[in-house]
């Protein structure tokens, strides 16, 4: 069994994600007002904030699905939007929508994305992913017959199919029941343990506290506070979060 040929990162890059003075406007409305953000390789960053703070917009810019109005975005040494294809090859995205086709089976969905990511010997990889997310027994079932939790597990499988360096999770717990959430916890811990860089937006402070190594609060279009797990030892995340929003 051959191991993946991991994509080389730019030799000049030191941080995995660097965002400088990022501004995003939709017409007259400014959503992000000069965000500075940096993530080291292997970090698990929880990006927290109230509804409408711009978390999803920020993640969509990192995923190259939206262009910044002003500012610099650099991922794995590649600059957005000019080197978007190189960035996308190193990026996995999980959102609250599954990004899966209901009229295809679980394995057909993964096969399709494997071809889009130009993965060779993808049959073996598809089987590995289905085993990883616990859907091997349902591989030939149509995705539209899956529960929300099963779809989200398959969505994670789709996101890690090409073994990305960076994984972006946008509210991955939305609509999941307790069992499905626990399952997702396990998958996230596994992904993080493999040294992947993870950025996750969430409203669930308990889960974020359990998983992340750093906590950034996005409020009123800027990162208003940031703390590592170590720095939060004397207080808890809820207090830190409330103080950040109040300040």
């Amino acid at each position, binding site marked *: *069994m*051959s*191991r*993946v*040929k991991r*994509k080389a990162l730019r030799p000049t890059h030191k941080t995995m994600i660097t965002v400088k003075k990022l501004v995003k406007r939709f017409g007259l409305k400014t959503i992000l007002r000069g965000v500075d953000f940096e993530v080291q390789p292997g970090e698990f960053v929880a990006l927290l904030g109230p509804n409408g703070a711009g978390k999803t917009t920020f993640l*969509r810019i990192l*995923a*190259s*699905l*939206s*262009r910044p109005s002003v500012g610099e975005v650099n991922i794995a040494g590649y600059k957005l939007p000019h080197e978007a*294809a*190189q960035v*996308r*090859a190193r*990026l996995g*995205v999980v*959102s609250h*929508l*599954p*990004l*899966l*086709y*209901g*009229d*295809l089976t679980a394995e*057909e969905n993964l096969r*399709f*994305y*494997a*071809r*889009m*990511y*130009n*993965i*060779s*010997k*993808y049959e*073996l*990889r598809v089987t*590995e992913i289905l*085993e*990883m*997310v*616990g859907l091997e027994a349902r591989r030939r079932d*149509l995705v539209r017959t899956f529960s929300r939790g099963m779809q989200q*597990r398959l969505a994670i499988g*789709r996101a890690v*199919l*090409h*073994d990305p360096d960076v994984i972006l999770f946008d509210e991955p717990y939305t609509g999941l029941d307790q069992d499905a959430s*626990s*399952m997702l916890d*396990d*998958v996230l*811990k*596994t*992904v993080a343990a*493999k040294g992947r860089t993870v950025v996750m937006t969430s409203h669930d402070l308990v889960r974020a506290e359990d998983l992340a190594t750093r906590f950034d609060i996005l409020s009123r279009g800027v990162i208003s506070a940031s703390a590592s797990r170590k720095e939060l030892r004397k207080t808890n995340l809820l207090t830190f979060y409330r103080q950040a929003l109040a300040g």
Partner: protein
Amino acid sequence: MVNKATEMKPITASRNQPSGNFIKAVSAVVWKDLRSEFRSRELFSAMLVFSLLIILIFNFALELDIKTRQSVTAGVLWSTFAFAGTLGLNRSMAIEKDRGCLDGLLLAPVDRSAIYFGKVISNLAFMLIVEIIVLPVYSVLYNVNLFQPGLLLVILLGSIGYVAVGTLLAAMSVQTRTRDILLPILLFPVVIPVLLAAVKASSGILTGADFAEILLPINLLIAYDIIFIAVAFMVFDNVVEE
């Protein structure tokens, strides 16, 4: 089940350069669309039923002699293809948007024009299948022989032009809340040159006009096809991005 998730296996895939992925990505999109449609038959059945209803309505509405029927055939045929085609184009992009799959496609490390060409080929396939079924039904109902090589070529060229510009505009309109209304409003004014040339060429072939008379609209069709595909190739990336 939970334990399974924690056992992440070694990865055995390899990844090549994104630039070498173009043809593979186009074929993957076509395969995915055909496979999904084969299962659901949502798009195809809507297009087919709509087409058959249009030619039936025209058949009852226009009680014409054989000669007049031949002269209106081109117009009736292309109206049918255009309206049915709009249904298909709308649905084809709506399927991508509704479950967030368009984002899934856009996240792939391929030139985004590969997505465009994949969608064009699958939309064209659906349109041609509907046309293949509609033509014999029309021939029987109107007593007109439509199986002429020249006419089939015109139908192919006209469909390519229609789908090329329609897929681009469907990708644009699907981002809006009023996508069902917006697509025909955007599409029909832009696609008029293709439809006019197609009707003119089809009419000429059916009425047995001189070759020189038919050649001009056919050349125009070829030119429009090339222009529309080239423009869509250049702007698709900007159209699908927020």
